[in-house]
């Protein structure tokens, strides 16, 4: 069948890309081949714009067991255990069908983890929405949260952490990034590359339907809502639970040499990945793929994104065992092809060959693009903002215009308020290993059963800072995620990233993407955390606007003794200190956004050497049992950090000493300005000298603030009942249950 003129544009290939395909093949592609090229050369699978940039990120360290290129990254955490983790976006599907989009996002990232032979032990989510005042945003928010819970709760994987941020730029473009962390013995780690000519390709899990056709290409174009509602997949977490258990049991024994889940571009990408990673060929027969609908064409079978499916590479003698194990989990397995030695991906429909292409043409030959980059003039203009034009706050009770009054407003900001209305809908106690649950500390801490160890994990990005300065903002994202892990007591080991950006074909979009990756690389190198996995989501824009650039960073760290961890809770009588040299300023702050409706100024500078010294000091003090209370100063600055600690502890504080001044000496910036490299700690008075000695030795600034105690928050001339602060903060995002 001939390809109709322009048909390639239907699968989001450009005219030049189609010409390239003609040249590589030396002939016209078949319709099935064209669809496969469209999927594999999409931004989602082919990383056309991001690959040259991603190559610049550090990926290696002695403890890295698996870097980018596999289904997920893996690091050694000691005791023969590997921690496997990755973050992935499901932005476009969630914009259209939020419940199923978010649910299948969780399903997809969980499959990436157990495909590696690891049991998933934790989920985190990084979410972005437009303001909740708009009904559409409230609908998206409620259903995304519902979908994450609906899928993760059913699988029995605790959702232990995450973040959510609201900004107008996410109107119509919500971001849904899901991260999964799993654990496996080193020798159980499984790769996805096929090997062994003659080995069988077996498909297990769900039958194949028409759902999700063209999902990968749809994620790679602007404005999904106007185009592709029907392509969102529907999740079946019950089936995924069975698939998870069956796959992990299969990997405990012999016979299965590789595993590859069917995600974006379904059977096409899984077959191509298996062949290209293994340096072999693969032949499959779509006629042997079990269907849930009649009349499906080979094209539809190859491009379906039906969920909960897994492709196994099995030694011929292992077929019987696979069938037995899979049957025990109420699933079925079908041999759909085998591994060949000719490097070709060959697709049959019974006797007919409907596609026959060298695997490398789908992968290595995918074009990459370096685009023109130009900073959007609007961002440069915003950065030039001068805060001295604004009236300052006073330290005067809670009178209008005082720090106290502004603090209560900030606590009620959707970007600061309690996340419990979100995580209260996620099961976070299942698996009985959650040591620091969501809301209690800066990072979640999960114990590793059978060892003394635990892992700390956090996911972060300040989208607003990235919008003002993508390079600096991305540095901050890495630093903040590491700082949060360190504050909980974890030694940061490695990072995973999810690059959420607008259209890279526009100079502004490419500027943001390329500068953010550069900043991320610099921070990862300085802090010693290689990037071991990740995902890219571009074209997050509608006709009206693009999203704030959001290079989300997930970090995993290890605690050698999980009983020595820190939360943000202090105790009556504790001394309260501020550690670190970060100088607060108003640029890009939550206070400027909420109090003055301004997103402007430059994000705070970041001294990565000072940051590393602070993180090491705090992490070491927690690991040595000296500190049990540590909290990063994030959005809303010092005053909000202190208020959060008081609320979580139900113990107030008296800040008797003035905190260090900010960049310009203003009162508002001292209390509500933001900076990196600042951590509030609390400890018994008797332990203060030991901590001070450590700070002295490490060259980390230490500043006494006051003492925890009572039931009021006494700072900046204000005296606010802890209950009143909690009241302002508790139910902004929704009701609290129980």
């Amino acid at each position: 069948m001939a390809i109709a003129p322009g048909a390639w544009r239907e699968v989001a290939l450009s005219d030049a890309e189609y010409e390239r395909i003609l040249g590589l093949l030396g002939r016209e592609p078949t319709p099935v081949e064209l669809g496969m090229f469209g999927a594999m050369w999409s931004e989602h699978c082919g990383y056309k714009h991001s690959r040259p940039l991603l190559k610049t990120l550090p990926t290696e360290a002695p403890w890295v067991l698996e870097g980018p290129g596999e289904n997920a990254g893996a690091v050694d955490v000691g005791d023969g255990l590997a921690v496997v983790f990755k973050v992935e976006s499901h932005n476009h599907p969630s914009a259209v069908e939020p419940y199923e989009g978010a649910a299948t996002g969780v399903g997809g990232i969980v499959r990436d983890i157990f495909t590696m032979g690891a049991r998933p032990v934790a989920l985190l989510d990084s979410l972005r929405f437009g303001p909740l005042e708009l009904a559409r945003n409230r609908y998206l928010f409620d259903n995304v949260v519902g979908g994450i819970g609906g899928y993760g709760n059913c699988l029995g994987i605790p959702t232990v952490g995450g973040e959510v941020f609201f900004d107008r730029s996410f109107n119509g473009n919500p971001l849904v990034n899901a991260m999964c962390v799993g654990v496996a013995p080193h020798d159980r780690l499984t790769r996805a590359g096929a090997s062994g000519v003659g080995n069988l390709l077996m498909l297990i899990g769900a039958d194949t339907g028409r759902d999700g056709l063209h999902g990968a290409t749809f994620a790679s174009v602007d404005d999904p809502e106007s185009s592709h509602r029907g392509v969102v997949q529907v999740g079946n977490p019950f089936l995924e639970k069975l698939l998870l258990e069956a796959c992990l049991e299969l990997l405990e024994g012999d016979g299965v040499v590789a595993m590859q889940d069917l995600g974006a571009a379904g059977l096409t990408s899984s077959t191509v990945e298996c062949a290209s990673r293994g340096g072999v060929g693969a032949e499959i027969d779509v006629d042997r793929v079990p269907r849930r609908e009649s009349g499906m064409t080979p094209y539809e079978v190859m491009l379906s994104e039906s969920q909960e499916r897994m492709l196994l590479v099995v030694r011929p003698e292992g077929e019987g065992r696979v069938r037995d194990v899979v049957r025990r989990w109420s699933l079925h397995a079908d041999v759909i092809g085998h591994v060949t030695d000719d490097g070709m991906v060959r697709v049959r429909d019974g006797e007919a060959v409907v596609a026959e292409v060298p695997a490398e043409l789908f992968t290595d030959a995918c074009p990459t693009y370096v685009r023109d980059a130009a900073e959007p003039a609007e961002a440069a203009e915003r950065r030039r903002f001068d805060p001295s034009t604004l009236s300052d706050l006073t330290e005067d009770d809670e009178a209008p215009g005082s720090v106290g009054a502004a603090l209560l407003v900030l606590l009620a900001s959707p970007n600061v308020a309690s996340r419990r209305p979100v995580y209260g809908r996620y099961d976070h106690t299942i698996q009985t290993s959650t040591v620091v649950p969501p809301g209690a500390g800066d990072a979640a801490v999960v114990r590793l059963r059978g060892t003394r160890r635990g892992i700390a994990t956090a996911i972060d990005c300040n989208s607003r800072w990235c919008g003002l300065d993508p390079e600096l903002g991305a540095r901050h994202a890495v630093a903040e995620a590491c700082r949060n892990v360190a504050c909980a007591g974890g030694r940061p080991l490695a990072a995973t990233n999810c690059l959420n950006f607008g259209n890279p074909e526009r100079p502004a979009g490419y500027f943001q993407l390329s500068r953010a990756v550069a900043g991320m690389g610099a921070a990862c190198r300085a802090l010693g955390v290689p990037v071991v996995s990740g995902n890219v989501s571009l074209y997050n824009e509608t006709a009206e606007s693009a999203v704030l650039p959001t290079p989300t960073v997930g970090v995993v760290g290890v605690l050698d003794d999980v009983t020595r961890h820190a939360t943000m809770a202090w105790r009556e009588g504790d001394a309260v200190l501020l550690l670190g040299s970060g100088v607060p300023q108003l640029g890009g702050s939550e206070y400027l956004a909420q109090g003055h409706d301004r997103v402007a100024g430059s994000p705070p500078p970041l001294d990565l050497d000072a940051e590393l010294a602070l993180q090491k000091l705090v992490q070491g003090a927690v690991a040595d049992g000296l500190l049990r209370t540590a909290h990063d100063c994030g959005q809303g600055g010092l005053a909000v950090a202190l208020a959060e600690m008081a609320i979580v502890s139900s113990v107030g504080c008296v800040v008797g000493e003035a905190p260090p001044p900010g960049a310009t000496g203003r009162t508002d910036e001292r209390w509500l300005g933001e900076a990196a490299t600042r951590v509030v700690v609390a400890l018994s008075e008797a332990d203060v000298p030991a901590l001070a000695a450590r700070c002295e030795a490490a060259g980390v600034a230490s500043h006494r603030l006051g003492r925890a105690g009572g039931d009021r928050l006494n700072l900046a001339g204000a005296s606010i009942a802890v209950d009143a602060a909690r009241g302002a903060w508790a139910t902004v995002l929704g009701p609290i249950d129980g």
Partner: protein
Amino acid sequence: MSGGVGVITFPGSNGDVDALHALRDDIGVPARLVDHRETDLAGFGALVLPGGFSYGDYLRSGAIARFAPVVEPLRAFAARGGPVLGICNGFQVLTEAHLLPGALLRNRTLRFHCHWTHVRVETAATPWTADLDEGDVLRLPVAHGDGAYYADDETVARLEAEGRVVARYCDAEGRVGGEANANGSVAAIAGVASPGGNVVGLMPHPERATDPLLGGDDGLRMLRAALTMVAAQV
């Protein structure tokens, strides 16, 4: 020789391994997982139906699991007076199998709830509360979407009269109901027992409250009763 405690795994159960760890590793009672197709339960001293989403809870929570092959022998085990504990989804399965009265409805908020709660022990006359005293307050996690216990007035009156309400949601001081009854259970009921007392269903998760490191270990106070059950087994 006692088979210890059997923890029944239905397709979609996800609290089975937690219950196994709690019993075997934290309490120290022999225990193993029991596949939903097993039919010989005679050797066990007690059975636990764990939490989760059996068969996806797609029709109604627990409604399909009641047809699993293991349920008829479970029924026989219970009829002989064998101790059975259904936790969360296990409680839902026991009501669907009519081994316990009533039903678990959608939480009154229509949302999934995950938080720690207190429950007041209302009777010590079940094998699962034998080590506790009436009025004891336990702090346990809940994690459920369909957690609101419901029975008609007549049934609730009978449960009360026969002392078969096992636990009620309360505050830290043991005051029953009010905001502590977050899911909207009738009479703040968190757990009920069969007429003989040997079959107990409980919505909160004692198997998740097994270590102060996890936020509390009150669950052990209840689950330790399994030691007695297994020791008493001939």
